[in-house]
């Protein structure tokens, strides 16, 4: 449904070129919940914004983003506007994304009025349906964002994203700033939503409970893509292993070192300097290796012959 091919997003800054997203490829299948996992600053949100072309002007984007046989990067701004919200909707990560001076009901009805030119009343009756689905009382529709708690705002944002019936929903850190209880509610809600979803999170337990497939991002690169079940039982990439081991339930073992700067990240495998298994070959860019339905960008899984060729 959505295919990202060799996507690069670079930012020109005074200090040099920031490679926020580097050579990322993945595809989303109809109806699945695909989760991008990664620590802060690994380029997850930039990737999401690149898909909707919401990046600031100093971003250099290369590669292909194919959505329903169209390359999003080649669409005109007009076509883009028709696509945003109606075909691909974005649930922003900050709860400040609601306009403080407009009622939440109106803000949810807006995409409908804009995209389908329906009357205000019809738009609102649809919004009430979505509100009911998400467990928000209809009478709250005329309230303003400051009258809502964080969890409620998050639900309103989900309602906004859902209102124009998009085919793909991109949720950018939907659990940010919510407590465990509210995260549980969001998981329930997301499970009920029967749409293709791209979820971006750094909350591993959230990803575990929700996703069909998982992609791990490290330093702008996707290092592993696996079905969620396999990922959480047997991660392939050393970084994925490190991530899971750092969970409290699995020993609370931190990964040593820090994520390298995106301006002059190490050549070859970017995780090399923090990796326990690094070998001589890791100084060269690792290949993407396919193992059944899993992908991993790591020399450890390459055939001996290939490694020797590169050393």
């Amino acid at each position, binding site marked *: 449904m959505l295919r990202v091919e060799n996507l690069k997003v670079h930012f020109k800054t005074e200090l040099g070129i920031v490679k926020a997203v580097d050579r990322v490829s993945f595809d989303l299948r109809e109806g699945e919940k695909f989760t991008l996992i990664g620590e802060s600053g690994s380029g997850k949100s930039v990737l999401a914004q690149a898909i*909707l072309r*919401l990046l600031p002007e100093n971003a250099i984007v290369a590669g292909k983003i194919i959505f329903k046989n169209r390359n999003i990067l080649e669409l005109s701004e007009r076509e883009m*506007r*028709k*696509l*945003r*919200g*109606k075909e691909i*909707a*974005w649930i*922003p990560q*900050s709860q*400040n*994304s*609601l*306009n*403080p*001076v*407009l009622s939440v009901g109106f803000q949810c009805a*807006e*995409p409908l009025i*804009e*995209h389908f030119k329906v009357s205000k009343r019809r738009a609102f009756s649809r919004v009430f349906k979505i509100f009911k689905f998400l467990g928000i009382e209809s009478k709250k529709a005329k*309230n*303003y964002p*400051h*009258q809502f708690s964080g969890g409620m705002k998050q639900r309103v*944002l989900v309602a*906004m*994203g859902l209102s*124009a019936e998009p085919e793909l929903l991109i949720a950018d850190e939907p659990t940010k700033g919510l407590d465990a209880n509210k995260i549980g509610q969001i998981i329930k809600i997301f499970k009920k939503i029967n749409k293709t979803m791209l979820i971006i999170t750094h909350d591993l337990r959230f990803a575990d409970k929700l996703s069909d497939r998982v992609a791990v991002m490290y330093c702008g690169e996707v290092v592993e893509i696996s079905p969620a079940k396999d990922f959480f039982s047997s991660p392939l990439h050393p970084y994925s292993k490190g991530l899971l081991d750092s969970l409290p339930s699995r020993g609370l073992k931190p990964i040593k070192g820090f994520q390298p700067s995106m301006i002059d990240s190490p050549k070859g495998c970017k995780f090399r300097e923090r990796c326990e298994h690094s070998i001589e070959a890791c100084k060269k860019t690792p290949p993407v290796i396919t193992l059944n339905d899993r992908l991993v960008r790591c020399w450890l899984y390459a055939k001996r012959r290939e490694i020797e060729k590169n050393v």
Partner: protein
Amino acid sequence: MEFAQGTIFRSKLLNNNLCLIGFGILAFITLMGVLAPVIAKNPYKTNIAERLEPPNLKHPFGTDQLGRDVYSRVVWGVRTTLLVALTISLMSMSIGCFLGAIAGYFGGIVDDIIGRVIDVFLAIPELVFNIALVGVFCLAYGESIWNVILAVVITNWVSYARIMRGIVLSLKEREFVLCEKALGAGDLYILIRHVMPNAIGPMIVLATLNMGNVIMTIASLGFLGLGIQPPTPEWGQMINAGKNYITTAPWLTFFPGLFIAVSILGFNLLGEGLQEVMDRERIVET
């Protein structure tokens, strides 16, 4: 809970003394203007036999050099001043807000052009510019009340534009703008429907405080003989006519002057009060 915001705002307004006093003064003055036909006599009627009479029971504010009742002229003057000032404020607010918002939101060359125009207007002393403009308009189109209105609007929109630009500049970086874009809204729609409503508060404060300045300018132009022309009652022009008699008949200048001062005070108090209530940082140096 339902209308919490409105209720809190109202109670804050009612508990703010500045607001109340300012509003009281303005309500009183406006009421005088509205009721002018009832509470005042004909402001144009001359009576040479009763010229330059000091305040008495028949003429509470005395009479002028043509024997016209100063009280009636001052009261009718409320209408002139307030209507002209309101027109000027509304016009310059719409022009200023629009241009400022566009400059702030779109940036780039649009911002450069509007920004430089604002700078040029700010560089010229306002009153001098007004005088020049009124003079030019008078020569070009003849005497009319619109000369004054247009001249003041031309200098006055700048302050709205400058402040609106600043507000929009910070508002457009807020997350909800990005969120709206992600939902497929266009730039103009976002600007008008989402960004500008967030700027209404400071704009109302600015407009209120600005009304005082506008009244002052109208009166100044009137005093210089460039404003609203006699015999239409207007405070500045009344002071101008009375200044020759200031030693023998001070009431000719005192009462119009008092009304100018009090109405400006009213707007400034209300503006300051609103600013406090709206809990925003000071946007205008007064």
